[in-house]
């Protein structure tokens, strides 16, 4: 049996919402310092997550990944 998931896509997460619920941090993020991928990562929903599961990336792929962006942001 399978069901179709819909409505689960998160869109338009604003930077202000990028706090982690664990309250370990409260830091402002300088948008100007965030490269394009990280901008996309922010816009495309990365609120409040500790990692990304995806097809295995190479080391090069990691540097271009959302996971890398999250790590750079310290999320």
């Amino acid at each position, binding site marked *: 049996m399978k069901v179709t998931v819909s409505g689960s896509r*998160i869109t338009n997460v604003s930077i202000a919402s990028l706090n982690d619920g664990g309250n370990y941090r409260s830091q402002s993020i300088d948008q100007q310092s965030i490269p394009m991928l990280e901008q996309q990562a922010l816009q*495309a929903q990365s609120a409040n997550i500790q990692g990304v599961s995806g097809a295995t990336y190479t080391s090069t792929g990691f540097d271009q990944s959302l996971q890398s962006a999250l790590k750079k942001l310290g999320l």
Partner: protein
Amino acid sequence: MTATKTAGKTRVVRELLRVMGTVVTFDVIDDGSKDDVHVALASARAVLRRADAVFSLWKPDSPLSRVRRGELDVIDAPSEIEEVLRLCRDVRELSDGWFDAEAMPGGIDPTGLVKGWAAKRSLDTIRRAGFENALVNAGGDVAAAGTYSANHPWRIAVADPGSRARILGVVELDGSIATSGTSERGAHLYDPKGHRYSTRFSSASVVGPDLSIADGLATALVVAGEEGFSFIDAIDGYEAVVCDRRGGVLATSGFAFS
């Protein structure tokens, strides 16, 4: 590379390790009551480096490469090889033959679950050192213990195979999640029934208690396509979400994004 951030006495200790052809990240919650977290992390890194040394197919002198060439019997090889091959047979059975390390071109190939197995062992090492809340993400296959904080489970995004900057949704992790697909490394997944490199889904993610099992099942499901939902449904504790070739997102009935 280590980074820490503190709030009161509790801190998240983060490390990143390039190993097994990918990048592994560690997140360990350190409340200050245990031994040195860096000792635990050193052990966790050693587990992954050891797995790389034993199982690498890129290294012609690795024990697994020698087993494949018939130069080394499994019984004489490091015991991890027999353990992993047994696990591969378990997953072959669980997946109705859609995961089959023994049907791979070029010889026996447990690659489809070795990374998950190694990440789980690595996390177990951290737990044994007394750190009950920790996360190991091995190139996109994630094993979690405990929680991020008292009121916050570990939350992991599932990547959209169509775009590195998008996600399909977020899962709150109790155990593990593994994802297989072709978006990062191309058509490397082999269909043991069709005898060719082929996948029916763009990506498949499996959540469940044991990352080594989840990793093998994700490899099986991305190859099997919709037919694979039946074997996932038959395994207690495991659920799946996939992205099909048209970008549609399908999941087993017990799966939920948070």
